[in-house]
């Protein structure tokens, strides 16, 4: 199994009040799985994704990715390296760094892995070609459209071939046509590269293109189909 989540619990504490968000959740994913999670706003979908991506800490249970429990990483810096090497993130606001060109943005995950600059550049260009942004590579984020930005963000999330891609409402800011294009792109890439994708979304059409679809209710995942 690529990802195993066992009895995961997460409670937010603000002074006296406690807000249990994830309640003894179990879930697993194999390599090449394409999973979508839907759920009401505030159900805890983002929280779940952030826990798997080691951006946040959980209270109970365990998360095992690629055979290694996140609990094995004692230090935050080790978790940082884990993210760098294993995870590809796509956020709702497809956040690209404004002072860098599209190409440079896509190169960052590789540069962080200390891939030589030239090689990083070649791989990033290749990735941009796959998402259809080759001719936009030297533009700055402010010079491209929202749909293009989100495609660039996908390129950035995939360029270093992460074992798991985590996408939190990747189409949240896109209009219908752009959303459609984006979903097609994601589907193609997933098939071609045998990617393992976990996507959180409100959008029916995006959710439906996943092989397995879940609904998050009361801190747990319910299988809808697949």
């Amino acid at each position, binding site marked *: 199994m690529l990802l195993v989540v066992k009895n995961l619990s997460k409670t937010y504490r603000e002074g006296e009040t406690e807000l249990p968000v994830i309640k003894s959740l179990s879930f697993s994913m194999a390599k090449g799985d394409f999973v979508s999670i839907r759920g009401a706003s505030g159900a805890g979908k983002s929280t779940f994704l*952030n826990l798997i991506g080691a951006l946040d800490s959980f209270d109970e249970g365990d998360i095992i990715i690629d055979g290694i429990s996140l609990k094995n990483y004692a230090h935050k810096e080790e978790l940082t390296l*884990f993210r*760098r090497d294993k995870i590809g993130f796509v956020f709702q606001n497809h956040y690209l760094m404004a002072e860098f060109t599209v190409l440079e943005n896509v190169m960052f995950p590789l540069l962080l892995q200390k891939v030589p600059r030239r090689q990083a550049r070649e791989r990033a260009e290749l990735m941009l070609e796959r998402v259809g942004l080759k001719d936009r590579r030297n533009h700055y984020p402010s010079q491209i459209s929202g749909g293009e930005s989100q495609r660039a963000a996908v390129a950035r999330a995939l360029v270093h071939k992460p074992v798991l891609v985590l996408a939190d409402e990747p189409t949240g800011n896109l209009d219908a046509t752009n959303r459609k294009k984006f979903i097609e792109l994601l589907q193609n890439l997933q098939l071609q590269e045998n990617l393992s994708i976990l996507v959180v979304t409100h959008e029916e059409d995006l959710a439906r293109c996943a092989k397995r679809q879940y609904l998050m209710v009361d801190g747990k995942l319910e299988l809808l189909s697949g």
Partner: protein
Amino acid sequence: MSLLPVFIAWRYLRGKGSTILSLNARLSFTGIFVGTSLLVVVLSIFNGFQVQLKNSIFRFDPHITLTQETTSGPEKIFSWREYKAKIETRLEPKLLLVEGAISSPAIVRRKNLLEHVYLRAVELQRDPVRNQYLLPAYFPKIEEPANLKTFPRGSYCLVGREMAWQLGLYVGDEIEVIVPRGEFAARVGLRPSLKSYRIAGFFKTGHYQYDSRVVVMALEEAQKLFAIGDSVQQIFIRLKDLNELRQVKGEVMKIWPFSVRTLEEEQRNFFHALQLEKTIMTVIVFLFVIAAIVGIVVATYNLVHSHRRDIGILKAIGMSNLSIMAIFVLSGFTMGYLGTLLGIMTGIFLSVHLESILGVVEKALNFLARLYTEKISGGIYFPINLIPRDVYYFDSLPIHIDPGVLHQVGSLAIVLSALAALLPAIVASRLEPVKIIRSTE
């Protein structure tokens, strides 16, 4: 660590597209830049005043003065030639000059104007051909007649340029010098001695006190005036190197059993004032440094704040805390470094051209002032003078650029800007990516 933080820091400073510096970097750079250039100008002027004052005093005043002090003042020294020879043989390599001297308060009368002055009479070499005295090498410049090197023997004296102005004197005019006769210390009551001297020239030391109060003549002439035969009141010693002042004093004290006073001791107030000026300078530098630190802290903090989302993303995709810190330390440091460097260069340029710059400012101010008085207020127009000569008593603004001080200020600013950037950089490295990602969702 990789070069990635350098690359990112550089981009943050450069900003998007082709601007030279981002707005943020430009602001803090400007702060440091303006601060440093002004500091350099201020320090150059301060230094200039100090150097000018010191030079004028060290050139004109004896470095060590020997007297035979009694309770009622200095005594006549009869055997001064003996001591002079002794000191000369003993300390020869360190000395510039040893001379018998008379330095005494006196009164100058010109028509019905009286002025209290100091009479300074020193041994003067005689021109072997003409019947004239040679001015010693250390003697300040003679303003009028320009570049005078000798003056006639007999009843002639030299006075300071300021005194000449104040008393309305011309070269060749006569003044009366009045001193107590026979004794320096008025032990037996005052019997005045009075004699007329013709003015051979005006000197200018650059020090107002001297130029307005000192009358110089040959020792022989003063001895006649005081009617004391071949005795003197002081023995003056001048050194080649003023750093040896204390040491030479020690050795002179072994030869001269009476009072030995150095220039520093004679001019205690003056040196205190110089010290005070140094302290003020230090305070100014200190204030500047604080301002620079605050500037860098604020600028770097702004940079961190405006790049919160970048920090969140970079951490999410696996950049270490240390690298995040490096980005912002480098940014702050670079702003400080460039600002300081350019500031120092500009400061030097401004210092060197300060007079002409002030001249232009003065003209502009006067133009506006005249326009205002003539067209609007209708009052009387007085020209503005930014550097009134009669107040500052300098022909030109004394500017002295001290490379040592610049070096210190520069290194301090650069090191501190790195340190100042550290705090916001630590804040940046501690930001939690999950919070950032949530807050922008």
